């Protein structure tokens, strides 16, 4: 696995997965593709500016949108592409039935900014926003209303309990839907945005916030995030016989390193816990049937609103590039001063790669290879078919607490060799399909803060938000005891703290600052194509 030869004639890339009919026309295109051929675009955060949920007509704006920006399905490449997700409150405002709203998963119904959830996600504690959130608190969220569980208002004889009042956390901007537009160049994207804005304005749908969606690949075709590292290198590879295929129609094989059942990404399919991933339902109506919603497998008299849909987690993460490189520089300086004899190899760049766990081009740090990184694969891409236990159990190459290792520990947490496969399988039950892109201009000098707003619009797809996104954030990224470490969190996403870098004979511990701050976030429902048609018919 290590010494995979570099192919003499590099091919374009490994075969990518696609969905077989009919799922290809039922699923939004952004599930199967990151639209690499459309390097620019916009994310438009929409607010429905009407007061009460209407009985009829709440989907009219969506029908208008479909005329100017039809949501892309997954059956092939398009000249430009669009994706669409809804917050719970957005769906309510469109007039979706209360019972249907109740049929969604708990995290979606409660919203990302539910008090206890924010604590688990490392954003807010005891009424205060933490340092990993922008000054003054996040700008936007779904502003999901408090649910019935928030206050126990039920009267009972003999009840003298003090009622806890849950705080309703509100952001200045309310987002009801997120429209993602992908285009080939800036001018077209700008023109398209204007056209969309014009089409939505008569329906009282406002664009309340927008961010560019940039890939901006360098001359070698590598899309880098603002700190300079290749982004989106490792992705889960869904499989399901007869549904996930390669070009030509053969089943996409189960990838031994990154394979996940399709139900981890799409509702209505079997997931990693041997169950069909749950989705919302609507009562059987002619409109639902006409939109193409299938009958629900278990609920008699109901249609499946979830099949081939997903949940989309979105977090706007502001990056402070100068602070990152300054912090790396200071840490390197301190090491050089404290260890003049043995730290000649350590500089800001060396430390930055330890924070990430990969080099700038996305190759995994590796203790046994003389180059210090894993050789590229046969497609001349960073090798993603690797495990940790056998090669780098102690993290001498890729530190145990580095960003990539926390993001996906693979088999690295196995206590003994016989547990490797179990731990790899377990880790693959907590994968997310990332679809994020960066926003903001590339910094001219990474050492100097230019005061411009830049960062990553983190977007990921999963069907079980608790077991996937929240698990990754809480149990891996921000877990102070991840991989037997103590009192340190993810050096990139976490608050100011420490990072242990294993070395012989003695580990180094550096101090890292806060470089990434959340500026807004919410959980969205990413509907299937029939579900979009149904919502438009409301």
């Amino acid at each position, binding site marked *: 696995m290590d010494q995979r030869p570099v192919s003499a004639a590099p091919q374009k890339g490994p075969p990518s997965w696609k969905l077989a009919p009919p799922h290809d026309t039922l699923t939004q295109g952004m599930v199967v593709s990151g639209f690499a051929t459309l390097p620019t675009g916009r994310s438009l955060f929409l607010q429905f500016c009407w007061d009460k949920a209407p009985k009829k007509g709440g989907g009219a704006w969506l029908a208008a949108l479909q005329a100017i920006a039809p949501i892309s399905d997954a059956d092939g490449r398009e000249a430009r592409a669009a994706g669409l997700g809804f917050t719970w409150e957005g769906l309510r405002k469109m007039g979706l039935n209360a019972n249907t709203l109740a049929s969604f998963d708990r995290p979606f119904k409660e919203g990302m900014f539910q008090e206890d959830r924010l604590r688990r996600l490392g954003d807010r504690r005891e009424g205060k926003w933490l340092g990993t959130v922008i000054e003054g608190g996040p700008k936007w969220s779904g502003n999901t209303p408090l649910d019935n*569980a928030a206050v126990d208002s039920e009267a009972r004889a003999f009840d003298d309990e003090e009622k806890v009042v849950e705080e309703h956390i509100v952001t200045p901007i309310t987002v009801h839907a997120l429209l993602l537009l992908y285009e080939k160049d800036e001018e077209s994207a700008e023109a398209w945005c204007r056209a969309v804005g014009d089409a939505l304005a008569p329906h009282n749908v406002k664009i309340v916030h927008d961010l560019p969606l940039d890939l901006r690949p360098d001359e070698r075709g590598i899309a880098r995030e603002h700190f300079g590292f290749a982004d989106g290198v490792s992705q889960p590879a869904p499989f399901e016989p007869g549904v996930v295929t390669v070009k030509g129609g053969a089943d996409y094989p189960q990838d031994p390193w990154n394979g996940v059942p399709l139900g981890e990404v799409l509702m209505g399919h079997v997931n990693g816990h041997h169950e069909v991933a749950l989705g919302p339902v609507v009562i059987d109506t002619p409109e639902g049937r006409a939109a193409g919603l299938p009958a629900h497998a278990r609920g008699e008299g109901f249609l499946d609103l979830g099949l081939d849909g997903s949940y989309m987690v979105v977090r706007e993460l502001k990056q402070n590039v100068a602070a990152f490189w300054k912090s790396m520089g200071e840490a390197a300086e301190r090491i050089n001063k*404290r260890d003049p004899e043995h730290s000649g190899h350590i500089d800001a760049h060396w430390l930055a790669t330890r924070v990430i766990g990969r080099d700038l081009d996305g190759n995994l740090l590796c203790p046994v290879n003389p180059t210090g990184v894993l050789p590229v694969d046969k497609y001349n891409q960073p090798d993603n078919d690797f495990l940790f236990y056998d090669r780098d159990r102690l993290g001498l190459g890729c530190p145990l607490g580095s960003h990539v290792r926390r993001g996906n520990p693979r088999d690295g947490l196995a206590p003994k060799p016989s547990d490797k496969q*179990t731990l790899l399988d377990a880790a693959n*039950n907590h994968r997310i399909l990332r679809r994020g892109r960066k926003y903001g201009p590339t910094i001219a000098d990474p050492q100097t803060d230019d005061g411009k707003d830049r960062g990553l619009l983190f977007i990921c797809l999963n069907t079980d938000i608790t077991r996937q996104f929240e698990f990754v954030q809480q149990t891996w990224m921000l877990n102070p005891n991840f991989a037997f470490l103590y009192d340190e969190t993810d050096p990139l996403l976490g608050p100011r703290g420490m990072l242990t870098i294993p070395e012989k004979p003695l580990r180094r511990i550096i101090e890292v600052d806060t470089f990434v701050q959340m500026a807004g976030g919410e959980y969205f429902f990413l509907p299937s194509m029939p579900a979009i048609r149904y919502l438009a018919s409301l």
Partner: protein
Amino acid sequence: MRQTTLSVALEVKPESYDHLSSLLDRLRNRRSTDPSGGEGPFADFLTRVPALHFMSLSVFPGFDYDPLFVIEANFDGARGPFWAQLESAIGPDLRLMLRCCKRPLDNDGPLFDSIVAANARAPIAPYLERRALTPTVYHHGNRGMTRDRILAEHALFEATRVELRCANVDGPNPYRVLSPSQIHAKLRAALLPGFGWLDHSAPKRIPLADNIADWARLIGFVIAAVFALSIPGLILSLIMPTDRYFILLAVAFLGFAAMLGKIGVALPGTGVATRFSFLKLFFQQLLPLVLFVLGYLVIAVAIGTPISMLFTARSFDAAWHGMITWLLWGLACVPVTVAGIVFWLRVLERGDASQDAPPVDPKMLREMARREDWIPQNHMGSIVLIKPGILRMILIRAGHLGLGLVLRIVARQGYLGSMRTIHFAHWAMVNNKSRLMFFSNFDQTWESYLDDFIEKAHAGLTLAWCCGVGFPPTRFLVKDGASHGRQFKEWARHSMSVSRFWYSAYKNLTAEQIERNFRIAIGLRKRTLSDKDAALWINDL
């Protein structure tokens, strides 16, 4: 030193359920501003109950029974001193809580009256001791580590970090130019003044007597089980001619096997592929099994021969020979008895009603969420109804007893399968043994804890919990079951109550970190280490 895990479950007057809940909340609020407990005002708890590792006070709402107030405690040493310490710390609070409980209708009634009467001053410790339950299974993640030792070794760990970071703080770090053994020596020299106990040898975590007792209990259990399983054979071989007896065994075995082959497969939609295999387990355990059977023969012959001589007046040779033959004939029946029990079990399992969507009260869930994930540890308490029937009753009792004894041997390092995230966990039966209670003090989140079980230890967990009413469909006590991820999690949540008062004596330490501190301390207790040993030891620093 030995750790004790126990619980006291007391029925609550339904009218006092809410009041008791608020008493627990108030106790928590008074003790600490941090909802998880710990620092600040909790410090006095730390000093006044020095034996205590983890403790919870919770009240389970009544659906099938009246509400239940449960005190769960995990502490060092014997029960007596602990109850006395606890009473001195929160005695008046506990007395108020006990007043919310029902008067026991058995002989403990007068004792209860004496402690809950208006202006009662009688100590409550004797009552709690009388009502304490012994766990059917328990597990300790850091066995043999007393609370004070855990705290002391963590202070040592913190001191190593300070020393390594701050030595010669304005110039080059002296540790950076040393070999591993020199690092060890220098660090030890630097820490010794503050940690004099490094010069003493470490107390044994599992004393010899405990070790022998663990093994003796397990051996006793297996031998008793073998004897019990051979009883049908022992009886039949006495009343039937030998050839007919063996024909019966063969026919019965083949019959059970054939029927099991038919009904052994998973019911449609409930099967989950697993790496667990009975055959693999059988061959892995074949040698110990053979040894146990030989041990059984030796002991049974030693006991049986003189008895046989006494009653039949046979010579020693004849009695000895007759006894071993009889026992062997009895053993021949064990596979048939096992097959018969498994067949019976499988019939029951196929008829079991599992709950596909256990109802979870959103308000209760929110109350739980409000108290979870403040510190790296969390707590859960759950009560489930036990499935009816005599075979179930026997299997739960024998299964829990056996599982508990096995854990004392195989889980000494704290690992359950590949996971070491539990500090203290136990099962106990309540309400006249009709309900099964489970408590756990674990690391990380509830979700990750349950996922660990689903993904890494589903067989063991299914074995211990599949006797619960509504548990996901199970095959042969260990297969499928907890592998049904969401269904199992909802079932577990459904059975839980809010951990209203929960105390941890070392809230930032995971079970792994306690072991890491232990390894560091063990190394530092040694005056010298070879370069090779030191290099390994340094990985933990």
